[in-house]
């Protein structure tokens, strides 16, 4: 736990700095509108009162941290989780398609990587396309996937999960290609001296050697999946999910809602990455990993 304590002070200092900066910018950015309001109402508040007002607008340009915190708390803990305004409910909607897409993406990434490592033709033909696929902006692809799938009658969870898959298979493919190729020549020679079959070499050497690479790439992939799920909610006019909350907030200028949805999304992302990290550490320990 010492490493945790070592990190606590620097991380908290940065957080405090960010919060202070955030307040400063909230005052600066909300001031013009507040001045406007005051002049119309013929009021001339003192400096302290003026700053107080800039931090308490109902639809501020930049909400103050405490406004976001209050909104986040209300929508997370005070609403029934079945309510469409509950952040827990919306986060769950996004999380479910994230997890489905992540599972698809990881499976697809592993399958492609195994193909690339074992079939020389695939290595040459597929890899450039896979890299090209990630240069296409997802915002352009997402509506097409949703529309095309809707046309053939697939709606709901699957189209969103497909976008998550699209974003998450790539890091897994790249990581697993590297991982499956990571065994040292000496280890491969050793298997050769035993006259091991290709499948024995694969299961007994390449797969175990690739496990650390898998978990590293899964950490990237799970965060990408969440982004995919949120992006997938934007063009569909989805009624629920973090993405839908962001979009609705933008329509109705509910800037505080947008920010608290953003906070919810970040917390979900952090939790997902943490869960994958912990799973990775458990597996590493089970495979005889040296304690750090």
């Amino acid at each position: 736990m010492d490493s945790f304590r070592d990190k606590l002070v620097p991380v908290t200092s940065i957080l405090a700095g960010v919060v202070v900066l955030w307040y400063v910018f909230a005052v600066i950015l909300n001031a013009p509108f507040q001045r406007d309001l005051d002049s119309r109402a013929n009021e001339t508040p003192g400096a302290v009162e003026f700053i107080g007002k800039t931090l308490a607008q109902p639809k501020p340009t930049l909400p103050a941290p405490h406004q976001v915190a209050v909104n986040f708390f209300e929508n997370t803990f005070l609403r029934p989780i079945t309510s469409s305004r509950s952040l827990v409910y919306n986060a769950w909607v996004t999380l479910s398609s994230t997890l489905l897409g992540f599972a698809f993406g990881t499976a697809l990434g592993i399958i492609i990587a195994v193909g690339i490592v074992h079939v020389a033709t695939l290595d040459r033909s597929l890899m450039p396309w896979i890299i090209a696929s990630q240069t296409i902006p997802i915002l352009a692809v997402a509506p097409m996937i949703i529309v095309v799938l809707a046309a053939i009658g697939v709606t709901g969870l699957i189209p969103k999960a497909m976008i998550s898959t699209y974003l998450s298979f790539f890091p897994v493919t790249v990581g697993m290609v590297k991982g499956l190729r990571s065994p040292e020549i000496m280890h491969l020679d050793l298997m050769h001296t035993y006259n091991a079959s290709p499948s024995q070499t694969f299961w007994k050497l390449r797969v175990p050697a690739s496990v650390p690479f898998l978990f590293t790439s899964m950490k990237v992939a799970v965060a990408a999946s969440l982004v995919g799920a949120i992006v997938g909610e934007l063009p569909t006019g989805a009624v629920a999910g973090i993405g839908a909350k962001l979009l609705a907030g933008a329509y109705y200028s509910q800037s505080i809602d947008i920010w608290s949805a953003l906070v919810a999304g970040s917390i979900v992302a952090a939790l997902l990455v943490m869960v994958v990290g912990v799973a990775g550490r458990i597996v590493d320990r089970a495979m005889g990993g040296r304690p750090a």
Partner: protein
Amino acid sequence: MTGISPAVVAASKLGLTFQTNDGPVQALSNVDLTIGKGEFVSFIGPSGCGKTTLLRVIADLEKPTSGTISVNGMTAEQAREKRAYGYVFQAAALFPWRTIERNVALPLEIMGLSRAEQAERIKRTLDLVNLSGFEKKYPWQLSGGMQQRASIARALAFDADLLLMDEPFGALDEIVRDHLNEQLLQLWARTNKTICFVTHSIPEAVYLSTRIVVMSPRPGRVSDIIESTLPKERPLDIRETPEFLAIAARVRDGLRAGHSYDD
């Protein structure tokens, strides 16, 4: 010298040329060598003399480009397919995700032995290298010398009569090395295996071997073969006897004659 026992390794006019970007490199040229059953043969020479390459050709990890090689009366490839030899690399090359006993079990799993048979052989070979009690440890929990002993156990586990060792103690300090040399001789005496041992240490070669093959580079070739006159029973202090020093001197002369000290 090997007339009575059948040849375990027989090389005739063996040559191997690597094609590199800087043109062909003759790693082995015209190697004639016969190794009989139960011999302990060391290959010694400076880097680039082809001693490791020769061992890899015997192991069918490299294909010769000329001449012939036979192992146990078969081609090197057939011998490898029959798992005729155990190979010990410069590094222990243990799988870090397997415990010591699972590492030793690796070749046995590949050969498809039953669990019971595996357990019996693991116990026997770990006993042989004095690693009993370390079955459940992972490689990183063992010292370098113990790791290399585990890798020797792994090479012994499937009862091949031929042991190919490529500078197995090269990365270890001299104290550990002395100790392992002594243990290796005991192991050789007990198991009656044929051992091919690559080294660049003259004392190590003289101490261990019944025969020393001196090699020299550019092109890699055998420049001298020295029969050891030392008895089979060799305590460590045999290395101070005049007989030992005489053989060591001959090896050194052989290396010099091969222009091995040119650069």
